[in-house]
């Protein structure tokens, strides 16, 4: 209203200064510009005030007789009415234009806000992180605290395709908040579905490991056990046998099978330890020769000669003696098992930043397609006889090499046979 009064006063003032050299149409235009300008500047009410007051001032000051409300020429009534009608028509058009512009700006802002919300949410993988991000983002956007509560609370319901997911607890409502709610619900559903799939996958994997383990344990553990039990029971029950040479055979059986059982249990325990992620290798800088020496003295009397050659200038390697000993033992035993009586070799050479060790045999070798698979847990080669293990030996090898930051792979040995190679890096990432 004040703006309208002010506009009328300004127009009257200008008109008063110029009253000497203008006729009626000049003053009509002057007040029309004032009224329309007010409409643009302050809206419809101010413009209405400006045009009515303007018209009255015009009548009072400029229409003859001046300083009176009397209208001398009656056609001037038409001028006044036309002035009022036009100023109000223009004012309402301008007003609508203003509203539309404001709407467009508002819509654009909301679209941008929804877009940035979607972007922020898509960066979150877990449903928990997504909840936090949605709360943070919306609180900052709306400048009021926003919380995401379980479904059924008071607020905007977050509904997914398979039912309610939660509630967007915020003061107020309206289409924009609803749209935000839909956006959050969509993202939340995506995250929840992904998590569910992940859980199902892990569970399936665990189930698979468990069933293979169960199969392995029930078969591989019970075979030696039944031999031990049978042999021992014979010794206890059959008196005659205790005096015959069979006694030695039975006792030997018991010893052999117990050893095998012990080996199996040991492998299982090692795998669990290595798999659990809790094992920190006790890395000590030492010559590879020392570990090789322990393995050779322990293994050769049992399995036969090993063609070992180590260059004299091998650098010291940071390694866990116990683990690498086991790694070499597993690889060498494996080589003897599959080497068909051929030469088993153990060599090492210095590479840039690492030492590479090779264990080779002269057996049938390993076909290309299986060279990765043999390192999997519980994997057993198709022709494996019952005297083999549970299929953990090479899996343990891989776990040990990885703990040292190296890698293990298989190549074809020159002249046939398998060549197992692994690297031990000289610098170990902490």
């Amino acid at each position, binding site marked *: 209203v004040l703006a309208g009064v002010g506009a009328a006063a300004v127009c009257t003032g200008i008109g008063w200064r110029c009253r000497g050299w203008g006729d009626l149409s000049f003053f009509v235009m002057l007040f029309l510009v004032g009224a329309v300008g007010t409409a643009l500047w302050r809206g419809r009410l101010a413009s209405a005030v400006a045009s009515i007051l303007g018209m009255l001032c015009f009548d009072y000051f400029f229409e003859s007789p001046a300083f009176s409300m009397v209208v001398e020429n009656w056609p001037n009534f038409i001028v006044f009415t036309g002035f009022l009608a036009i100023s109000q028509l223009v004012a309402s058009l301008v007003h609508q234009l203003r509203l539309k512009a404001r709407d467009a700006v508002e819509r654009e802002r909301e679209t941008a806000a929804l877009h940035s919300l979607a972007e922020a949410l898509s960066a979150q993988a877990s449903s928990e992180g997504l909840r936090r991000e949605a709360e943070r983002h919306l609180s900052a956007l709306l400048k009021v605290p926003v919380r995401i509560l379980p479904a059924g609370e008071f607020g905007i319901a977050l509904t997914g395709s398979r039912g309610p997911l939660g509630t967007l607890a915020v003061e107020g409502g309206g289409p924009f908040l609803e749209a935000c709610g839909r956006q959050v619900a969509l993202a939340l559903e995506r995250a929840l579905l992904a998590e569910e799939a992940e859980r199902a996958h892990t569970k399936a994997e665990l189930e698979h490991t468990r069933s293979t383990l169960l199969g392995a344990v029930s078969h591989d553990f019970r075979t030696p056990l039944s031999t031990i039990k049978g042999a021992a029971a014979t010794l206890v029950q059959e008196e005659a046998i205790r005096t015959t040479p069979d006694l030695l055979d039975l006792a030997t059986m018991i010893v052999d099978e117990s050893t095998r059982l*012990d080996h199996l249990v040991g492998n299982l325990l090692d795998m669990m*330890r290595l798999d659990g992620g809790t094992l920190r290798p006790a890395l*000590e800088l030492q010559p590879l020769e*020392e570990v090789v*020496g*322990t393995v050779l003295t322990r293994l*050769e009397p049992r399995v036969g000669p090993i063609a070992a050659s180590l260059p004299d200038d091998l650098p*010291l390697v940071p390694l866990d*003696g116990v683990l690498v000993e086991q790694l070499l033992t597993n690889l060498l035993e494996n080589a003897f098992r599959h080497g068909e009586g051929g030469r088993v070799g153990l060599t090492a050479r210095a590479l840039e930043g690492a030492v590479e060790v090779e264990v080779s045999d002269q057996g049938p070798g390993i076909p290309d397609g299986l060279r990765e698979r043999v390192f999997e847990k519980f994997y057993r080669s198709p022709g494996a006889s019952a005297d083999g293990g549970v299929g953990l030996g090479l899996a343990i090898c891989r776990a040990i090499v990885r703990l040292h930051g190296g890698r293990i792979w298989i190549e074809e040995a020159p002249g046939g046979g398998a060549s197992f190679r692994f690297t031990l890096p000289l610098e170990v990432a902490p």
Partner: protein
Amino acid sequence: VEDDPGLQKFLVSCLRKQDYAVVVAGSGTEALALARSHNPDLVLLDLGLPDMDGLQVLHAFREWSEAPVVILSARNLDDQKAQALDAGADDYLTKPFGLLELTARLRVAVRHLLRREAPGAVVTAGDLRVDLEARTVSVNGEAVHLTPLEFRLLAALARRRGKVVTHQQLLTEVWGTGQAGQTQYLHLFMRQLRHKIEEDPKRPKYFRTESGVGYRMDVDG
């Protein structure tokens, strides 16, 4: 000292057959009480006991007895083995162990017990002859020249021939204190020693590696 009844029975029958006089304890408390009343010449101690840590038993026993203690421990517990040896145990056996292994270790322990009264200046193993007083070493009659540090390392192992000497014990004895954790020196000097003495350092006869624990000089060579 063993809490598992099966293993206890097996050990007792084996040891009695070899003319050892055996006293059995099934717990740490019982072990310490029986040790006081019987004053054993040799203790076979399982580290996993129901009432207290086997290491505690060892510490308590070591306060008043010098008798050899052979530890029985589960597999893969190298830290525990090293701790027990550092705490004064003489040797260890990893379960499951064979009878031959057990009696061999006990024989070494007993020999130590006897030798403790008359420490010899000359230690021999196979073709290796070490004179601890004259500080000379020979293999197959041929003199081997060692640096002072190498000789100290060799002497530390020779004095406790047949027994495991831990990394820590060797570091303290050969290099003095303040070298804890510097095992790479130890590995390096051991390598040099083997190259000078062993016929084939890749297949050491005299100096065995007990991975993660220490070294042992073999009795027979």
